[in-house]
């Protein structure tokens, strides 16, 4: 048995960490969302004005819906890229597995900002894509919609979050016992049938985990719209950022954050339930 002193010493640092850096900020945020700003000062007066504003002004809902649309696109595209890659690596890569794995992981070591600027140079009017198109005489003038559009945001976020989708997917595919695939073929199932009846159902937990990563991380992203998005692809986090910054309306910003937090928690709760339902061992 461990002594009480030992238990205290071991559990204190994580408790302090969670308390100071998680619960305290959340509590402050929650409190702020019920306060208001008057004459450039935050007044500690409890009210629901901020939440009322959110529902009255259609801008917030429009941006939230756009954010969710972008996040959903990113999720879909990352899955569409990540699943075939994970599938190929797990079942057919053979000896190249480790090398490919490293290649997928390496971009994660590169700063998010660097990758953002890289997309700027690729998509911009002086960029690689436009240069190539003009060289081929497909267009005479640079095509502008590549950059500063929701398309660019989706592209950049997909690039950034595909490894996050890949990793849990790959892990779940690697965990499928290979004799199940042999058993399926032995029982008369073609490779296609085996994929849909055995491999896909057994990789669902990984697929859900990856999709959750991509969706939740995209939902809170504010750098991609800043770097490559332009005004037409402002996301909800950009609004929060400006409210906490130049607009100096912390209470309204906090109320949006609370909404996003609740949305995210609901989403995580839902996917966890789903994941539990489709994991069998």
């Amino acid at each position, binding site marked *: 048995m461990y002594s009480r002193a030992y238990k205290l010493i071991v559990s204190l640092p994580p408790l302090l960490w969670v308390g100071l850096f998680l619960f305290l900020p959340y509590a402050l945020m929650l409190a702020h969302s019920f306060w208001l700003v008057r004459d450039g000062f935050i007044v500690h007066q409890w009210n629901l004005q901020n939440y009322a504003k959110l529902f009255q002004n259609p801008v917030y809902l429009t941006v939230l819906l756009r954010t969710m649309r972008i996040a959903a696109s990113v999720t879909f595209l990352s899955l569409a890229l990540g699943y075939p890659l994970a599938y190929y690596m797990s079942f057919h890569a053979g000896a190249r597995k480790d090398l490919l794995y490293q290649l997928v992981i390496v971009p994660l070591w590169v700063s998010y900002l660097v990758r953002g600027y890289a997309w700027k140079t690729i998509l911009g009017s002086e960029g690689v894509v436009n240069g190539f198109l003009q060289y081929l005489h497909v267009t005479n003038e640079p095509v502008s919609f590549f950059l500063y559009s929701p398309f660019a945001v989706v592209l950049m976020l997909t690039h950034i979050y595909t490894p996050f989708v890949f990793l849990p997917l790959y892990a779940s595919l690697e965990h499928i016992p290979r004799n199940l695939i042999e*058993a399926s*073929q*032995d*029982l008369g199932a073609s490779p296609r049938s085996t994929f849909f009846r055995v491999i896909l*159902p057994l990789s669902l937990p990984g697929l859900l985990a990856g999709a959750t990563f991509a969706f939740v991380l995209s939902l809170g992203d504010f750098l991609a719209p800043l770097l490559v998005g332009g005004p037409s692809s402002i996301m909800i986090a950009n609004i929060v950022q400006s409210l906490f910054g130049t607009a100096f309306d912390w209470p309204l910003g906090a109320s949006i954050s609370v909404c996003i937090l609740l949305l995210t928690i609901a989403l995580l709760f839902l996917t966890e339930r789903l994941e539990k339902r489709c994991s069998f061992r």
Partner: protein
Amino acid sequence: MSQPPSSSDSLSVDEALLDVRNVAKHFGSQNVLKNISLQIASGEFLTLLGESGSGKTTLLRLIAGFEQPTSGEIWMSGVRLDTLPPYRRRVNTVFQQYALFPHLSVQENVAYGLHVTRVAKTEICARVHETLHMVKMQEFADARPAWLSGGQQQRVALARALVNRPQLLLLDEPLSALDANLRKQMQGELKSLQREIGITFLFVTHDQEEAMALSDRIALLRDGALEQIASPRDIYARPATAYVAQFVGQTNLLRAEICGGVATCGILRWPTHFIANGAALFSLRPEAIRLAPEDAAGTAAVRFRAVIRQQIFSGSSEQLEVDCAGLALRVRIPTLGALTGEHEFAFSPADAVLVRS
């Protein structure tokens, strides 16, 4: 179609359900199977017996289609099997670790093969029910494999394979994950099931007792080559090689010198009908040696005196280690009580079987 080489061990072509012709399998520079030929008769229970690494599982996987032979051909009922993908072969496998689908219930597992081959729904229902009944698992139809014990999973795996009515059922050490008592029980059930439904079984095991108990014939593999193929009784009573004699049961290997129809090993001398003079190896089972009764002199038995070195009581019999003028012999006799000192033993010359080394 090339005819398989005829020998005393092989069946005529029209009787054979499965015909393995000169099959070899290399993994890189490793020759896992070296030119194996064997036939399996329809309705037969054949066991591939061998140590781990003998190639028995590889041969099974070649027949199931999970591996391709490096050379040679496999035929089943007039159809060439080795060029077909596994899902087009009328062969089903019971896997060593059962390989039940964890996301499907017991009856969905059993129905799997029928579903993917588009059997009618009503027929699926009837056949799944019937097969689960056959393996006494009908009350677990809705359970998930993870909730079942090893023995129960084993039955489901068997049902899942049998429901497809394969021409040939492959069993890859299906009982090795079960504890001893359950294994004995499942052996009995497996044997009676096979008799009942008449499906040909190709069974892989490293357990010689299991092979003896279940099989019509045993094919003993050693280092990827077929050492001997014969009925359990024949393989025990007339082992072809010293390896077979030692692998299947215990034996005494006697290095003898044959001269003029008499074999000599130490002080032991016995008549043999092998004429060729020179060194030869004989296998003499421990139970072929008995304590010689004092008065029965003058029979054809070979009699010798030996000193008892060790006695191990094992219930119905006694295991003795005796010293016959420097030659150590194992003897198994019915339970008699403690023995010490020198005794007279005897064996019949017919029980000393000449084996290849």
